[in-house]
């Protein structure tokens, strides 16, 4: 870096007020459903009610004759509109079974919710009415909705052409020989956990508008997406619209959590229907439709074994996953569980590691990234297994963790990657202090002694996280088709205000605020004079979008490179204007000063000089605008300790979260209030998996938790306020020393809560429970342990 890293910082590290709020608080946001285009028509998708059915015929006669209908098509009628199937960007093995997946099914519906026909009509209501008139002749087929059943002999086959439901098997091993470490282990534990299927449920369902200029073939797609740039590339390939004529805009996006890290059938359909009709085509997902048609998360069986010494030192970890892909491979369906592959050893210093993951097709909504994507699953397995080992050795779970936590950095994980920095003991110490661990254990002992029906339990999660997706070379080695770099542009306008362009795409993360804070500090420009632009491929052509906690880790690293370039160019202009050598200038927060004098020129003054260009150094181009593209060399490694306290009513089985302490280390913090907010929300989604949420299918493959009435997204009434703190261990690989924070809470929380439930149930002899730990499951676990 050319900029002095110790430049005076005034905004980074403070809770600058959010730039996003003024419009969002007053109803002036612009979500997709808020956008209307003259002449716009509405699309409705006809979805299979069957989890598995042959499509014998689709009769559109009545739908086409219905009021206001513009067009209606079956899957086979649109077959020629596609240049390529929907994108699958991560063929994790050479021999992966990768079915062609088109926006509408033509031969077979493979999950309840699979689109089979589409209707376009004059209004939302008329499109829905006409969709009901489409007559599909289905031949129902046996369905499979359980990963292990799907691998059994005689299971219904989701994709006939493969003759098996196995999609791929992917291995990873590292460090010392794992079999030998297990053979010589004094203690082993073998555990089996179920990661239930989750429905991401961002509060804004998805929505799309495709609008064309028929004369030129230009297409503008508004979409509630985390990935407008990736969508542009892949939808151009899929629809044949030249990429240069396809503009994708993600306006205000009402949450994503991975579920909008996707290229969906409805985006492709809207484009081809706009092309066919010449009209702007809009589709807004209903919540019950979202439960079926937007990808799900998790859904796997985890087998994890630990080898340890008698004292409790873990030597090796062996993991085997069987993961539901659902019915099709979406953009990173196969790779999602592998994002956890390197961290099933947790924050522990182990010698040997082996991992194997099998992806399996089932007749269900496809799975893909959901907040944390692979890493919450990994953290859950290792944190629960460590507690199982503590139980087996009759050790305190905190002491066992202390014995095993990585304490020297950089640390080479047995799984093969290097953790650059951290201080796991410090977060554990601070969290225990906040909890008053001894005091808690005393109260717990008292309740146990008097046989209280309401028992307390405490659960720990000393996690590490791998995020900041991702070094392009590593992605390439893992067979992911794109890169992991990010771009930023800084543009000084003649009047001195600044536009910041980022290729990351926020959907709640406050980029407008934090990116401006960084630029304000590094360029000495007023916070209110900076506008951050994003989410429009014509405004910001270069970008890789937002997922995997990458906007700060990579997007702001690119931004820092761009400020460096701005300063370098401005410095030439300042040296010329002040008639000194560049080396005679000292730069600090937006001002160049001739060393030892009071002669100065600000970056803004240099920007104006660059614009009028009356007197620039020979050969220097006018205008002050710089773009930087940053490709990380390593992942980002946050870590910390989360502690959950639950109270379980043994008579009703109700487990309530009563306290939650989180001490995270995410390196340098740009905006404490925003980081706290990320952690709060992350924890809540992790708690929700532990206690409340589950996508349930019946034996026919029908989703029975298809609305917010049946699928329990927790409200404020179920949750306490969380107690947060941080330690700061700066990343040596980030220009600000920062680490990703968007997923930490979700990664850490789930095992902390389940470990706490099991701790509360220890007096009853319960040592295992499936998620969510619902009142019924808790109550049954107590009864079964008693009998």
């Amino acid at each position, binding site marked *: 870096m050319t900029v002095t890293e110790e430049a005076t910082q005034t905004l980074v590290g403070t*809770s600058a*007020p*959010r730039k*996003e*709020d*003024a419009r*969002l*608080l*007053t*109803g*002036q*946001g*612009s*979500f997709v*459903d*808020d956008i209307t285009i003259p002449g716009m028509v509405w699309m409705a998708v006809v979805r299979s009610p069957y989890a598995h059915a042959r499509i014998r015929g689709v009769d559109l006669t009545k739908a086409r004759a219905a009021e206001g209908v513009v067009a209606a098509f079956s899957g086979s009628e649109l077959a020629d509109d596609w240049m390529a199937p929907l994108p699958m960007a991560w063929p994790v093995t050479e021999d992966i079974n990768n079915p062609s997946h088109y926006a509408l099914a033509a031969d077979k519906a493979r999950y309840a919710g699979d689109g089979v026909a589409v209707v376009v009509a004059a209004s*939302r*209501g008329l499109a829905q009415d006409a969709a009901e008139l489409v007559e599909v002749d289905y031949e129902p087929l046996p369905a499979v909705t359980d990963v292990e059943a799907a691998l059994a002999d005689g299971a219904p086959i989701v994709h006939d052409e493969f003759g098996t439901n196995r999609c791929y098997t992917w291995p990873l091993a590292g460090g010392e020989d794992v079999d030998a470490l297990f053979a010589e282990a004094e203690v082993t534990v073998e555990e089996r956990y179920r990661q239930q299927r989750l429905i991401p*449920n*961002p*509060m*804004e*369902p998805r929505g799309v508008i495709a609008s064309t200029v028929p004369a030129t073939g230009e297409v503008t797609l508004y979409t509630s997406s985390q990935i407008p740039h990736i969508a542009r590339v892949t939808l151009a390939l899929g629809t044949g619209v030249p990429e240069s004529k396809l503009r994708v805009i993600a306006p*205000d*996006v*009402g*949450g994503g*959590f991975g579920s909008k890290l996707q290229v969906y059938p409805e985006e492709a359909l809207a484009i081809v229907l706009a092309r066919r009709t010449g009209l702007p085509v809009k589709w807004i997902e*209903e*919540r*019950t439709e979202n439960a079926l048609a937007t990808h799900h998360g998790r859904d796997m069986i985890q087998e994890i074994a630990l080898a340890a010494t008698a004292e409790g030192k873990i030597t090796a970890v062996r993991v085997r996953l069987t993961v539901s892909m659902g019915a099709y491979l979406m953009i990173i369906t196969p790779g999602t569980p592998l994002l956890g592959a390197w961290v099933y050893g947790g924050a522990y210093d182990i010698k040997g590691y082996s991992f194997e993951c099998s992806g399996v097709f089932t007749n269900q909504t496809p799975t893909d990234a959901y907040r944390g994507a692979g890493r919450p699953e990994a953290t859950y397995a290792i944190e629960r297994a460590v507690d199982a080992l503590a139980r087996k050795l009759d050790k305190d779970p905190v002491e066992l963790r202390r014995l095993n936590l990585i304490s020297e950095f950089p640390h080479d994980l047995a799984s093969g990657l290097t953790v650059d920095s951290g201080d796991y003991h410090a977060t554990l110490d601070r969290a225990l202090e906040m909890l008053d661990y001894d005091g808690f254990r005393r109260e717990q002992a008292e309740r146990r002694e008097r046989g209280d029906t309401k028992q307390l339990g405490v659960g720990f999660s000393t996690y590490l996280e791998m995020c900041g997706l991702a070094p392009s070379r590593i992605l390439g080695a893992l067979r992911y088709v794109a890169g992991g770099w990010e771009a930023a542009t800084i543009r000084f306008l003649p009047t001195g205000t600044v536009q910041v362009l980022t290729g990351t795409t926020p*959907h*709640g*993360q*406050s980029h407008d605020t934090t990116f401006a804070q960084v630029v304000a500090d590094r360029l000495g420009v007023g916070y209110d004079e900076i506008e951050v632009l994003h989410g429009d491929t014509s405004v910001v052509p270069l970008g890789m979008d937002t997922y995997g906690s990458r906007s700060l880790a990579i997007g702001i690293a690119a931004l820092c490179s761009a400020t460096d370039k701005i300063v370098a160019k401005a410095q030439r202009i300042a040296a010329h204007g002040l008639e000194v050598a560049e080396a005679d200038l000292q730069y600090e927060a937006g001002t160049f000063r001739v060393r030892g004098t009071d002669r100065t020129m600000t970056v803004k003054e240099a920007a104006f000089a660059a614009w009028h260009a009356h007197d620039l150094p020979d050969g220097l181009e006018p205008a002050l605008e710089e773009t930087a593209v940053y490709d990380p060399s390593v992942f980002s490694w946050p870590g910390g300790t989360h502690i959950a306290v639950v109270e379980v009513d043994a008579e009703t089985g109700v487990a309530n979260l009563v306290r939650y302490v989180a001490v995270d280390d995410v390196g340098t913090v740009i905006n404490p*209030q*925003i980081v*706290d*907010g990320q952690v*709060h*929300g*992350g*924890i*809540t*989604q992790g708690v929700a998996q532990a206690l409340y949420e589950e996508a349930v299918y019946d034996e026919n493959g029908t989703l029975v938790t298809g*609305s*917010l*009435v049946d699928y329990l*997204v927790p*409200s*404020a*009434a179920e*949750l306490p*306020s*969380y107690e947060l703190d941080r330690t700061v261990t700066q990343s040596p690989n980030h220009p600000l020393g920062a680490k990703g924070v968007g997923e930490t*809470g979700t990664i850490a929380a789930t095992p902390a809560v389940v470990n706490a439930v099991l701790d509360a149930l220890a007096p009853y002899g319960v040592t295992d429970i499936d998620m969510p730990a619902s009142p019924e499951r808790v109550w049954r676990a107590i009864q079964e342990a008693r009998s």
Partner: protein
Amino acid sequence: MRQIALTVNGERHEADVEPRELLVYFLRERLGLTGTHVGCDTSSCGACTVLLDGESVNSCTLLAVQADGGDVTTIEGLAGHGQLHPVQQAFHEQHALQCGYCTPGFVMATVSLLKEQPEPTEAEIRKALEGNLCRCTGYVNIVKAVQQSAAAV
């Protein structure tokens, strides 16, 4: 079609509506008041909360004809132009919104809550906001914002 007349944010509107037209779509698509959002189709999420005659209601569960003769306040009508209502100000200061999609509903529900219970405890706030879902904030800062609003109002 039925003719209705109602007041929205202080302005009187007369319109012919289909009997099945929901109040939320009347507000959003007829009046262009897109600050009121639709988050579900089961009255579970509260994103569509508006005030009808001063009480919070889910506008996705009411037909426009049911609001005939009523006085509706939406997020757009809560404060004067360019101003923030104390509840909006508190949400801003406490970082009680992230993506902002559920926010208008929470703000309207909070206005209604504080009218009924000017000094709610944390437990009462959490209970009262049970009908509004947020996926971003974990509710921690929303609770703080309601507490700040209560002190300010």
